[in-house]
């Protein structure tokens, strides 16, 4: 068995074998291995995963991985991005064989995602503002609040805690409904929308606000402006802020099954 391996960046629609320069991880030469009209962007490496405990180094690798995919998107249009650290053991022929075996699936996937890119939409809300809004519209909570003012300090403290918890529940159910509504709205523009369940990154700018929802959206080139308009509307609503990032390669939408 040879000690050769190929690190995979992405799959693009290309029939030629091209050298893309030393743009890869640790300045590795990235090139395409083509089979019919589908090509894999790779660099040659030893058959070992990239792994480190060094934060700066790891960040560098991820940025480099992403840089190659960005360059590929500029050059080839839609690509199918690989996750970090996917390595196939073998030479170019092994990759070609793999491309050939999965040709139809890759081809279909490229077609489905053609002219589309992934965007991320994060919606933030101002908790205090929403809380007072919810409070003023809820008689039960208002009654409880009035009761607090009449109590001794000890009892008032307990009731206040009670109120805070109830208010928090009321706000989050309110916010969930709102998020669902925004999700539907975005879904009418985007081809596909996924609500991300994991907490995603919150930039400094929004630190005083709470995250309502994060959506990954697959959007057709022609619809990006429409989505931008819709988001601007949400952004202008009182107590709300939208963070709109992209375009990314369709990391969240590429079908990972079966290749």
């Amino acid at each position, binding site marked *: 068995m040879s000690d050769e391996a190929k690190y995979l960046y992405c799959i693009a629609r290309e029939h030629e074998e091209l050298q893309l320069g030393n743009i890869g991880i640790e300045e590795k030469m990235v090139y395409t291995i083509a089979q019919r009209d589908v090509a894999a962007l790779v660099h040659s490496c030893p058959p070992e995963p990239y792994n480190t405990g060094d934060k700066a180094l790891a960040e560098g690798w991820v940025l480099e991985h992403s840089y190659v995919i960005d360059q590929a998107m500029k050059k080839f249009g839609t690509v199918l991005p690989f996750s970090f650290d*996917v390595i196939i053991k073998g030479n170019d022929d092994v990759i070609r064989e793999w491309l050939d075996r999965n040709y139809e699936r890759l081809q279909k996937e490229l077609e489905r995602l053609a002219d589309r890119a992934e965007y991320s939409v994060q919606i933030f809300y101002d908790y205090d503002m929403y809380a007072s809004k919810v409070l003023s519209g809820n008689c039960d909570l208002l009654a409880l609040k009035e009761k607090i003012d009449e109590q001794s300090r000890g009892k008032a403290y307990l009731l206040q805690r009670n109120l805070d918890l109830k208010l928090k529940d009321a706000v989050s159910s309110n916010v969930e409904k709102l998020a669902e509504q925004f999700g539907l709205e975005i879904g009418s523009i985007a081809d596909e929308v996924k609500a991300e369940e994991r907490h995603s990154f919150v930039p400094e700018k929004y630190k005083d606000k709470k995250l309502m929802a994060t959506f990954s959206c697959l959007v057709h080139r022609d619809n990006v402006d429409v989505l931008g308009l819709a*988001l601007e509307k949400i952004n202008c609503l009182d107590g709300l802020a939208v963070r*709109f990032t992209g375009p990314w390669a369709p990391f969240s939408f590429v079908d990972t099954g079966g290749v």
Partner: protein
Amino acid sequence: MAMEPKRNTNAGLVDLLDRVLDKGLVLNADVLISVAGIPLLGLNLKAALAGMDTMLKCGIWEDWDAAQRAWATEERRRKGLDKLPLEEGEKILFRTFGTHWYSKGIYHGWRPGYIYVTNRRIFLYKKEPSELLFTAYYEDIMGYAIEKKLNVAKKETDYLCIMLKNGAIAKLHPSDAYAVKDAVVAEMNRLGFSCKEMSAPVIDENADKFLKKGERLVHCEKMWHLEETFAPGGISRGTWKAGRLHITSERVCWWHDFDERIAFDLSLGDIGAVGIETRDLGGFASTRPAIIISHRGGDACFSGDVNSMEKIVEVLGSKAIEGEETETCPSCGTEAPVQELLTKGCMACGWISPRVRKLVA
């Protein structure tokens, strides 16, 4: 006005991490050698990037933890260690709580578990995490000794020493040493093995304080040592001090009980002659025999029980000192010479060192 999607590199990095590490195409073909999704491969990188806090928040840790647990459980199941490591047809005759004296490298201490006496062997087993701490088959046992010693709480307790035919000695501290001894001896006799009572063995907890790496304790006896002090005027006077004389694979040394340190230290190669003489040494030993170890610096005198002294002279004159260094098999705990374990593997359970396995593969 429409919002413009943005990508700035600083904030973008974290957005990227979410995607590049957790999403995107992965492979499940046989050509695959690594995928970020497989725990341990991608994890280091995620850990480096995210920091513990984020990892907890994002659930990366849980994923990894779950994977690790699943793996560990599977491993245990595979090795069959979740239940007692009994062999086919092996029956438990007696069980009691106990500890085993473990001393290897920088670690030494009493390791607790349950002592099982079966129809084949005696072993000490710890359940969580499951580990066989000590095992001895009856055919490998030569004899036993019960030693009375003060425990940590300065209370006298019984220690059970099991002498193996390969010269190794296992030291156990069961809650009832006599009960364990009786069970072992009775079963060994029933099976036609003899198990003699032997004199208390060479184990000395102090030894761990002065033994060097690779040095092995061969023999140890309670001995008085004549410490020479030179009074003004050149008249040599001696003071007898209590302690223990140790013979190791490298030297003869005497541990001073009161000072808790080695007060006499002589490498084996520097010994001139050894003999028991009755010399007028003054003090209580004036008419008693003493071991005289001659060396370049003069004569060193030790005295004690006559049997002990004879044993010391015998050991110093024998080849017992130059025995092979032994180790316990990491899988079943059987004692075997280090080189044999490393190159051939364990004769008892068939364990082979990963290095050898790699070479063979």
